[in-house]
């Protein structure tokens, strides 16, 4: 049983790391701010989401698990709105911003 939980954690967290890597590659490769923003938000949502998923079965209590999910949800909200806000700022000033 323990082994199964470990395998699940390793798979989910490993996939999360992959999305973080993908996001960074996007940041490095994409030519303009708006597409870099796009790459960034993908890393945020999926990367952290999968890591939280992998850590969930390891949490000590139900409250701790709920907190993990709340953290992920808050980061979703922050990522989505911050991307909107920064994106608007970019558009307002043209590509130089």
């Amino acid at each position: 049983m323990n082994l199964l939980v470990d395998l699940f954690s390793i798979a989910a967290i490993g996939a999360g790391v992959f999305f973080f890597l993908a996001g960074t590659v996007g940041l490095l490769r994409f030519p303009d701010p708006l597409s870099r923003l796009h790459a960034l938000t993908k890393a945020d949502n999926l990367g952290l989401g999968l890591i939280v998923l992998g850590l969930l079965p390891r949490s000590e209590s139900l409250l701790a698990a709920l907190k993990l999910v709340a953290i992920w949800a808050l980061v979703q909200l922050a990522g989505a709105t911050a991307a909107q806000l920064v994106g608007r700022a970019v558009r307002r000033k043209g590509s130089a911003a």
Partner: protein
Amino acid sequence: MSVLQALDIGLALLVFAVAAWTIFARGAFAATVGYVVYGLLLSLVWIRLFAVDVALTEAAIGSGVTGILLIGAAARLRGGETAGDERSLSGAARLFTAGLCILVALALAGVVLLLPDQGPSLARQSMQNLAETGLGNPVTAVLIAYRSFDTMLEKVVLVLAVVGVWSLAADRYWGGAPGEARAARPEPTLAFLAQVLAPLGILVGVHIFWVGADEPGGAFQGGAILAAMWMIVMMARLTEAPQTNAFWLRLALVAGPLVFLAAGVAGSIFAGGFFAYPPWLAKPAILFIETFMVLSIAVTLPMLVAGPPRREPRQ
């Protein structure tokens, strides 16, 4: 070398690199963002030093609230740096300064390396007396019971800082509200964020204050998160900054230190010592004081960030 050591070294290098960026970056805005990133990394370092209460403070104040203050300032100061700035020190003076600073850092590093492995510690004493305070978190006990005088005076410093900021106002604005009158329509995304975030944040802030009695957390951290929520609501223009001559505002600003001081005086009358709490009342008394401290912090930090009054007071 274990994985943990490798991680520690990597984290240390990253913190150092971001700090160096903050100092050497060309533009002020770039340096400021570097500082915000740095503050966040620092709370990771505090976790590695097993100082979770400090990490929480650093996350809420060092990174969050300071970020709003500095990024706002850097954005408003844009264009304020003149071209001649970089020449202000000659090359030789620069080199001399750098040498001096490296010496200071090396001396300090030497001290760090010479520290004994098991240093002097008050941990034992603070655990021995913990039961009398009724608390489970020794850091909160130090803040509100063992070294309460420190904490009370620190609240006074916060009030003084607000007085300092307010006194930067022009005479005719004294007592008015801080911040320029702005377009009435809020940025819709920001308004949405504030509407969703504020209720959740108030919940988390109160939670962190409440668990602070027994777990990492406390009045400072909880109050700082509440303060951040008021700031986001003001930034989204869902509410106006209050008039600085409002009685409730001034009362809330001083409530923390005032209640704290009153508790100290009451201690010297009823419990035989300034800031002494009778054991049967210790925990309720501490929570009572902390409640007002949370209120004061939640009001003080946004007022410090909002700046001096910039509008004439309404009568």
